[in-house]
């Protein structure tokens, strides 16, 4: 089998266990002093790349490169991916707000320079829940895309991907180079062991800026306001099935 180089995009996000609060100015959510970690779908993407190497061998999967776009702290996320087992990392450093289209444009330039055979991304970031970046990158590169992948098999230069769709699964095939975005199913991302965390400190981390890549970052969306969702009514503990039926039929009127 010919050799592959895999690029995995990762993003530093507010940790999924944190109870997100809208800030008092209603311009966004509170991010200061809030725990951040790697977007859970991106952890799956890194794990998927590592498992492809374990399955097919290091002669086939020659290199796993991780990339993140964002401020200086994005390097923490890259170090975590390196500790999990990635070989080197690229930090596209910017303090500007990044929309999916901007990220896709940055990734397009990195792909053009680095020439990976296969790009893995999480299906969405638990921040803006946009579900866009992978597909946008595929469109800009004119590569095939296989999104919401729950299983990926590599056969030579062809991928066979099982995708989650509404109501079930479908299987598609695509020739490399291709973009795959991952869902939370089937595989558990590994924890980095302490020796691997130490080894990660020696692995290469290259920093570039959008200007280096020739990309101008411009936000197209202006956030006018951010509010909390409507408050849920308090729950009630009911005494009997009859009471439940009565409330569902007469109060909530759903029966």
């Amino acid at each position, binding site marked *: 089998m010919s050799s592959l180089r895999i690029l995995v995009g990762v993003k530093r996000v*507010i940790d999924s266990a944190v*109870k*997100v609060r*809208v800030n008092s100015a209603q311009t966004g*959510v509170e991010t200061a002093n809030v725990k951040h970690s790697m977007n859970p779908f991106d952890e799956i993407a890194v794990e998927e790349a590592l498992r492809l190497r374990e399955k097919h061998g290091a002669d086939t999967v020659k290199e796993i490169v991780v990339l993140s776009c964002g401020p200086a702290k994005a390097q923490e996320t890259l170090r975590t991916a390196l500790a999990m087992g990635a070989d080197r990392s690229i930090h596209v450093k910017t303090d500007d707000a990044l*929309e*999916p*289209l901007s990220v*896709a444009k940055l990734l397009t330039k990195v792909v053009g320079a680095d020439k990976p055979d296969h790009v893995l991304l999480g299906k969405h970031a*638990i*921040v*803006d*829940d*946009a*579900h*866009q*970046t*992978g*597909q*946008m*990158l*595929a*469109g*800009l590169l*004119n*590569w*095939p*895309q296989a*999104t*919401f992948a729950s299983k990926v098999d590599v056969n030579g230069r062809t991928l*066979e991907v099982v*995708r*989650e*769709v*509404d*109501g*079930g*699964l*479908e*299987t*598609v*095939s*695509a*020739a490399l180079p*291709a973009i795959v975005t991952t869902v*939370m*199913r089937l595989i558990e991302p590994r924890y980095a062991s302490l020796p691997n965390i130490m080894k990660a400190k020696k692995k290469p981390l290259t920093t570039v800026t959008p200007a280096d890549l020739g990309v101008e970052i411009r*936000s*197209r*969306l*202006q*956030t*006018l*306001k*951010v*509010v*909390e*969702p409507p408050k849920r009514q308090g729950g009630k503990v009911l005494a009997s099935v009859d009471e439940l039926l009565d409330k569902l039929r007469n109060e909530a009127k*759903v*029966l």
Partner: protein
Amino acid sequence: MLNHAARTLLARRAVQAVQPTALGRFYAAQRSGLSSLVYVETKGSGFDEGALNAITAARALSGPVTAVVAGSEAAAVAKAVAKIDGIDKVVVAQDAAYDHALPETTAALLKALQEKEGATHVFAPHSAAGKNVMPRLAALLDSQQISDIVGIEGEDTFVRPVYAGNAIATVKSSDPIKVVTVRTAAFPAAAASGAAAAPEEAAPAVKAESLSKWLKEDVVKSERPDLAAAKRVVSGGRAVKSAEGFKIIYELADKIGAGVGASRAAVDAGYCDNSLQ
């Protein structure tokens, strides 16, 4: 910002707009600027009903609403789509290359139609197909897509949930073409109330390679309504305490024909599948 070609096109259409025919009215409405495409995903000889909610969203704006129907049985599907209230025209692309909402071909078709129709907005439901196709289209149109909207406040202003629905954001787009996916539960389904069917027209042939290939599907044929589309949902949280405990939730849901949902805590604890969250 309109380039010279776009300004010329609008000027030409302004001259044509004196005609009293339906087509003339169509072009006249185009002068007001707004015009929407709605992607209707075909499923064999039927179509994904999420399109009905996306059509309602499109109708919130002024200007014509054009449905795009593509696939090996598009002609048959188009007849049904043409009867939906609010559809001004149906563009039909009868070609197996668009079956299963293959993103590479479908996005190329939608891009060609956006150019041809001068559409300012392209809508689709935030379904598996919508999520797969629309961002690719948005990138081809150099537009920052707005996903999973729950409200429309203007032709450039949309409301959408973020952080898994823990916050609701109102965003304003500066892109000339807006690519939007719609949360179907937030917009009522357009009806087909029996008014005259909209005119149909064939889509231009679009040169787009089929970069990926659909092999097979494994659809869970369930009577239970899909969570995102269900009118009623029976939901379980951490207090259910186990996967066994969730059986009661399923039984009640099936008895009243409701969908089944779960809190993140229940899903994380393994009581039920992630797709119920």
